[in-house]
């Protein structure tokens, strides 16, 4: 055991002496590994960045919210089974909340009705179209997962009286008021005047497609008066414990069937949606993209590995006589094997570390240039690329090192 450690440290010393003596050759070989490691780690960073962004987007939907809607979020082929469903109306929230209140140990906290439609917001000359306006109850504060930056949400009295007040999403407030305070101003939502009583903090966009800062929230009653609720609504139901999702969903289905007075055996005439379903749907696509990306970048690492194998073969050939000498002095097969493996791994590790530093620099650069791109350079990536370098070194150095260890000492000593 001790002998192995001495042999290993001698191998490391010789390997670095060898690399120093053949600087250009070693650098060119390491370059192949550098390119491979940069490609793989950049791809890894991009994949984990996309993943983080994706998760952030999903979290905007709320990981403790169940959505009661007419349509499910996944694609359906039997659309005729859904199209005839009665619409979800905001009024359903009242009986649903009553049932929740009656249920002992309910896993559900509250159901909040949310009606929505696209509107155009105006203030003086400024205009923003495609504003998503939500009509909801004062309970909206219970399911809101963004800070109120300025002002407040409406209360129950304002809700019940149908006052035309609104809370604006960050981007709308910015676009209409351009830095000045929106509080106390009248904005027009589809030409209906609304008094601004609050502004939401910035949230970002969902998968880069749909902005969450492009919304306006108004009391349900005012919404009904101004826009009507014929288009239907949804109920957002908050769970008490997000880890008991399946039980909560079961409970909600039961409660909704009672609200809808559905008969046993009758199919649900509503859908319960949640963010996890989107995740489940997109995850396979995401991992397919990740696999394809890693495979393609992995090819460049493979080319680097071939370079390592080649240089190790050359090194073994050049030092055949040295191998013979070492064997004459008592080196066992594993000693020689170890020596050339250490050499291959050393070059790979140098390439790996340089490649990692390059990637780190690039990620910092990208982070500075596009602050919104969630590129994170994790410690896991460091361990991964060091491990990959070592494995590449061992795998590609093995064949030549094995050959060296098996050389007949007499033949090796006669080699010129």
């Amino acid at each position, binding site marked *: 055991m001790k002998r192995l450690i001495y042999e290993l440290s001698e191998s490391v010393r010789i390997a670095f002496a060898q690399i120093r003596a053949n600087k250009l050759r070693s650098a060119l070989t390491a370059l192949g590994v550098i390119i491979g490691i940069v490609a793989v780690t950049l791809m890894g960073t991009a994949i984990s960045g996309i993943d983080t962004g994706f998760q952030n987007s999903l979290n905007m939907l709320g990981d403790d919210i169940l959505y009661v809607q007419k349509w499910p979020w996944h694609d359906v082929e039997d659309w005729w089974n859904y199209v005839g469903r009665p619409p979800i109306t905001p009024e359903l929230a009242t009986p649903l909340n009553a049932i929740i209140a009656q249920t002992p140990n309910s896993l559900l906290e509250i159901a909040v009705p949310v009606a929505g439609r696209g509107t155009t917001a105006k203030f003086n000359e400024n205009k923003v179209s495609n504003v998503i306006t939500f009509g909801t109850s004062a309970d909206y504060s219970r399911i809101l997962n963004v800070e109120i930056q300025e002002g407040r949400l409406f209360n129950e009295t304002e809700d019940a009286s149908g006052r035309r007040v609104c809370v604006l999403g960050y981007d709308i407030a910015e676009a209409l008021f351009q830095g000045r305070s929106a509080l106390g101003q009248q904005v027009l939502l589809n030409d209906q005047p609304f008094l601004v009583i609050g502004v939401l903090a910035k949230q970002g966009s969902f998968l880069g497609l749909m902005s969450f800062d492009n919304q306006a929230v108004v009391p349900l009653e005012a919404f009904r008066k101004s826009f009507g609720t014929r288009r239907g609504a949804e109920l957002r139901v908050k769970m008490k414990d997000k880890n008991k999702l399946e039980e909560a969903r079961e409970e909600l289905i039961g409660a909704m069937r009672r609200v809808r007075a559905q008969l046993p055996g009758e199919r649900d005439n509503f859908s319960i949606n949640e963010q996890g379903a989107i995740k489940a749907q997109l995850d396979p696509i995401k991992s397919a993209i990740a696999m394809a990306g890693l495979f393609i970048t992995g090819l460049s690492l493979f080319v680097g590995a071939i370079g390592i194998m080649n240089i190790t073969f050359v090194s073994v050939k050049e030092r055949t006589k040295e191998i013979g000498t070492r064997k*004459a002095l008592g080196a066992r097969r594993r000693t020689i094997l170890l020596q050339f493996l250490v050499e291959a791994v050393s070059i790979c590790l140098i390439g790996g570390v340089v490649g990692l530093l390059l990637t780190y620099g690039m990620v910092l650069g990208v982070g500075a240039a596009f602050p919104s791109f969630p590129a994170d350079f994790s410690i896991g990536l460091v361990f991964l690329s060091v491990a990959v370098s070592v494995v590449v070194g061992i795998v590609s150095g093995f064949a030549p090192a094995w050959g060296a260890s098996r050389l007949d000492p007499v033949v090796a000593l006669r080699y010129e």
Partner: protein
Amino acid sequence: MSPSPVPANTHRVTRPPGALVIDIAGVTKLYKMGAEIIHALRGVSLEIRRNEYLAIMGPSGSGKSTLMNMLGCLDTPTDGRYMFNGKNVAHMEDDELADIRNREIGFVFQTFNLLPRSTALANVELPLIYAGLPAHARRERAAQTLHDVGLGERMLHKPNELSGGQRQRVAIARALVNSPSIILADEPTGNLDSKTGVEIMALFEQLYEDGNTIIVVTHEEDIARHARRIVRLRDGLIESDAPAV
């Protein structure tokens, strides 16, 4: 110590032979070169005892190096018996042979065979690494041995910073450092000028007098004359085996 040329056969010490180290009987070695079979050794029997100083002589191609490699456990005989220190080594595995070479045999090559990127000290330490000695003990023994062969001042030089004679001294120190049973030198002066060759042979004389067992392969009578016993090979057979005159 500063070795001075010792004229052959004058005032020289001959130590009484000790225990049997090498005992080969009927050893043959065949090499296949394509369809051709080369009989490098055709049946050689030889006994070598501790404290001997032996020269193996013969024309080029007579099988000297083949015999030497066999004696040094670098190679195994095609047929015949080989007992080394009472152990049968004729059918040993590679790694067992490697351990015997490490502990029992010190090789000196015609071309020195030093590691080019290692200092003299590191070169001499190498067999001790394979013997599993810790660093400080290795350093100490290697330094002492280099000192003994007259290179105490040059320990941290790389081979390319040393003369041919100095390189061969490093190689000899490397052969000696693990206190082997025998030292095997194949044409140790073959790559040296005659003056340096004489110095190296004086060093061997010294080592012999200090208690080492030495086998030198050479085709030069002048070199062989330093030994106490001369074995002559011809066409893979022992032609004569006699004390040096």
